[in-house]
C-alpha cells in the first residue's frame, strides 16, 4: 500500500516538475527584469508561451538532415529519465534500490556530453569552437562534480540517496554541499560560466540550424537540465531532515528548489561573463582547497 501511494505521488511530482521547469524560467525572467528596472514578460508563463509557439511553427530541417532533431529528441528523453529517478524530497521508488547517486551522476554527465555532441553534429562552424571551450571548462567542473558525488557516497556510507535520510550534518558535508552547489551552478550554464556552451551556444549555436518544434524541444530540455541539477542540490539539503519532516519534506524540497533557482538567477544577473582562459583557473582555485578540506574532515569524521 505504502509503495503504491509513493509511486502515485512520485508520478504526480514528476509531471509537476516537468511542467515547472519552464515556469521557473518565467519567474527568473520576471526577477531579472525587476533587477533591470523594467516590467519583463507579461506573466511567468512567458517561457511556456514561447515553447508552445515554437511547437506550432513549421519545422525546417537543417542541412544535416534528421541527425540533429534525433539527437535533440534523445536529449529530451534522457532529461526526462534523469528527472524521473531523482528523489523529490523523499526517496524515489523508481530507482528500484539501485545505487542512485552514481546513476544520477552518470546520467547528468551523459546529459552534458549530449549537449556537446549535438553541438558537433549540427556542423555549425561556431559550435566547433564552443566544443573545445566547453571541454576546457567541463574537464574541471565535471571532474569535481563527479568527485564530490563519489565523496558524498563515501561520507554517508551509502551509494543511494536513501542513505542520506536522517544523516547527521557534519562540517565536511556542508563543505561538500558548497562544492556541489558551485559545480551545479557552473554546469547549468549560467553567467559567468556560460562561455563554452549552455544557453548562448546551444540556444544559438546548435539551435541556429533549425526552427520550430525542434528548437522548442531543445530549449525545454535545457530548462529540464537546469531543474535536475538544482533538484539534486535541494535533495542534499532536504533529505537529511526527511525523517523528521515526513511528507512535508516534499514541500520543503520544492521550496528549496525554487529558492535555489532564484538565488542563482540573481547571482548570474550581477556578474559578467568570464573568459575561457580565466574561468577554469578561477574554478580550480575555489575547488581545490574546498575539496582538500572536506576530504580531510571527512576522513577525520567531522
Amino acid at each position: 500500500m505504502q509503495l503504491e501511494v509513493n509511486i502515485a505521488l512520485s508520478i504526480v511530482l514528476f509531471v509537476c516538475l516537468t511542467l515547472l521547469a519552464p515556469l521557473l524560467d518565467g519567474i527568473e525572467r520576471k526577477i531579472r527584469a525587476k533587477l533591470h528596472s523594467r516590467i519583463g514578460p507579461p506573466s511567468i508563463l512567458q517561457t511556456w508561451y514561447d515553447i508552445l509557439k515554437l511547437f506550432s511553427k513549421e519545422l525546417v530541417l537543417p542541412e544535416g538532415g534528421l541527425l540533429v532533431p534525433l539527437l535533440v529528441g534523445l536529449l529530451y528523453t534522457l532529461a526526462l529519465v534523469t528527472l524521473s529517478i531523482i528523489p523529490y524530497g523523499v526517496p524515489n521508488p523508481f530507482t528500484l534500490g539501485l545505487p542512485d547517486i552514481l546513476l544520477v551522476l552518470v546520467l547528468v554527465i551523459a546529459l552534458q556530453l549530449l549537449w556537446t555532441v549535438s553541438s558537433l553534429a549540427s556542423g555549425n562552424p561556431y559550435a566547433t569552437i564552443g566544443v573545445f571551450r566547453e571541454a576546457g571548462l567541463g574537464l574541471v567542473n565535471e571532474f569535481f562534480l563527479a568527485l564530490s558525488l563519489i565523496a558524498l557516497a563515501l561520507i554517508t556510507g551509502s551509494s543511494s540517496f536513501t542513505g542520506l535520510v536522517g544523516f547527521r550534518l557534519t562540517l565536511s558535508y556542508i563543505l561538500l554541499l558548497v562544492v556541489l552547489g558551485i559545480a551545479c551552478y557552473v554546469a547549468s550554464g549560467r553567467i559567468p560560466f556560460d562561455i563554452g556552451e549552455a544557453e548562448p551556444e546551444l540556444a544559438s549555436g546548435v539551435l541556429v540550424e533549425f526552427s520550430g518544434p525542434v528548437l522548442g524541444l531543445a530549449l525545454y530540455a535545457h530548462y529540464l537540465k537546469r531543474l535536475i541539477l538544482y533538484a539534486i542540490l535541494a535533495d542534499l539539503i532536504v533529505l537529511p531532515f526527511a525523517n523528521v519532516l515526513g511528507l512535508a519534506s516534499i514541500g520543503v524540497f520544492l521550496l528549496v528548489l525554487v529558492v535555489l533557482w532564484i538565488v542563482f538567477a540573481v547571482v548570474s544577473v550581477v556578474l559578467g561573463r568570464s573568459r575561457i582562459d580565466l574561468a577554469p583557473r578561477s574554478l580550480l582555485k575555489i575547488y581545490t582547497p574546498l575539496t582538500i578540506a572536506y576530504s580531510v574532515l571527512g576522513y577525520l569524521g567531522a
Partner: protein
Amino acid sequence: MVDFEPSKQDLEEVRAQLTEKLGHIARSVEYVPGAGILVEVPVKRIREAVKIIHNDLDAYLRTVAGVDERPVKGVFSAYYVFGLDSKHVNIIVVAYMDSDKPSIPSVVDIAPSADWYELEMYDLLGIRVEGRRLYRFILPEDWPEGLYPLRKDVAYNIRPEPSLRSREAISGPRIPVGPYHPALHEPEYFELYVEGERVVDVRYNGFHVHRGIEKLGESRFTYQQVPFLAERICGICGFVHSVCYTQAVENAARIDVPERALYIRSLVLEVERLHSHLLWIGVACHLLGYDAGFMHAWRIREKTMVLAELLTGSRKTYGINLVGGVRKDINRDKIGKVLDTVKWVEDEFKKLVEVITSVPQVVKRATGTGILPKHDARAYSVVGPVARASGLNRDVRRDYPYAAYKEVSFKVPVYSEGDNLARLLVRVDEVLESIEIIRQLLDQLPQGPIMAEELEIPEGRIGVSSVEAPRGEDIHFIITGKGRPYRWRVRAPTYQNIPALKVMLKDAPLADAPLTIASIDPCFSCTDRVVVVDARTRKRRIISLRKLSKINCIGCLI
C-alpha cells in the same frame, strides 16, 4: 564670430618653418583663413612634402580629399589635410594632376593612415595611386569598371543594373554555413585570421553602408539642405556632422555666427556626447555578458534622449542646424530642465560606474586586452578616446576650439595603458566632464539672435572644420560652389580608428576580439559580424560576434 583662428605668432612660425623646409619643392605657401596654410606642390614631389610635414613637423594626417576640378581648373587635385595640434593650425598640401590620366604617388609607407584615403580616391574618382596595391574598396564588386561616381560628369542617381554575377550571389549562400547566411544582422564585417584561438591578422570588409552622401551633397542638395543630410551620416553622433559641415561652410565664407547659436550648438553637442557614451558603456557591458550594466546604462541614457528632444524637437537627428546658426532657441524653463536632468544623470551614473567597475569579470577582461601602444597610435593618427587611452593628448575641443568651447574650461582625460579598460575609463571621465561643460555653458549663455543675418557664400573657397565627436575627431573639408558645395569631404572618426584595430587585435585571444572592436566605439551596429579565417588552412568560417563573445543577443537577457 567665426571659428577659431590660430594666433599670429604661431602662424608666422609655422609659415616660416614651412617655407624653410619646403621651399625647394613648394610652388606656393599661403594662409587661407578658415582652412589653414595651403601649400601647393608638384604631384611628383608629394612624397617629399608629406614626409617633411608628417615626420619632421610631427603633424597628424587628418584627411585626404580627391577632387575632380576639371570643370573649373581643368585638373584633378588631391588635398592632404594635416593638423599641427601644438600650433592649432592645419597644413593643407595640394597637388594637381593631369585631367586625362590622373595619378599620384602613394604615401602610405610614410603615413599609414593614408591607406584608406588612397583606396577611396582610386575607387570613387579613378585617380591611380602609384606604388601600392589598389583594389575595389567602397563600391560593390559588381559596379562597372571606369564609372567613378564622384567625378563631375557622372550623375548622382546613376544606377547601373546589378550584374549577373551578383544575381548568382543572391541565389545561393556564398559561404557554406548552411542556412546561416552572411551579413544577416548588420552589414559590415571584419575578417579575423586566426590560428587556433589566436588572432594573427584582421581585414576590414566594410562600406556596406555607403550611401553616396558626398555625391548627393554636391549635386541634389542646397547649402541649407545639406545639414540634414550630414546629420544622417551617423544616427548616433549625427549632430557632430551637421555642426562640422555648417562650420566648414561658415569658415569658408567667413560668416559671422551669433554667439548664442554657438553656445546652443555646444550644448547640444555635449548632450549628444552624454547619450553616446552611455550607449557605449551599456554595449560594452553587454559584450562582457553583464547585461544588468547594459540595462541600467540605457535607463540613465533615456533621460538624455528625452532632454535632446526637449531641446531640439527630435530624439535623434536633431535637425536644428543651418549654415549661419541654429533654428531652435532655448528659454529659462528649458535651462532648468537641462540642469535637473544632468544632475540626476550625474548622480545615477556615478553610482552605476561604481558597481560596474566592481564586477570582477568586467575588470579582468578589460584589463590588458586590446592594447594599442603609443607609437602605433601615433602612426595610425588615431583620434578621440582611443588616442587618449593610449597616451596621446589630443582633443579637438581644446586644440582647435570651435563653437563655444574656448569659453569653457574642462579636463581632457588621458590614460597611458592603451587597453580596453583605459578606453572605458576615458569615456567615464568624459561623461562627467561633459556634465560640467553643460553647466558652464548654461551659466554663461549670452543673449541675442540665433541666426546670422547675412548669408553670402562665394564660390571656390576652401573651408576645413573639425569637431570632437564622442568617437573622436570628425573633419569636414569643403570647396564652395554655386548654391551647393562643389566638393564636400567627410571624414568620420571611426574611419581613422578602424585601421588601428590591426594592432589591437593581433596575437590577442579570439574571445577578446568583440570587446576590442567595440572599444573604439565604431557605430556599434557596424561591428557585429566577423569572418574567421584559419590562417593555416585558409578555411573560412562566418560567425557572428555575438556568438563569439558568447552572447546570445540582446534578446536572451530579457
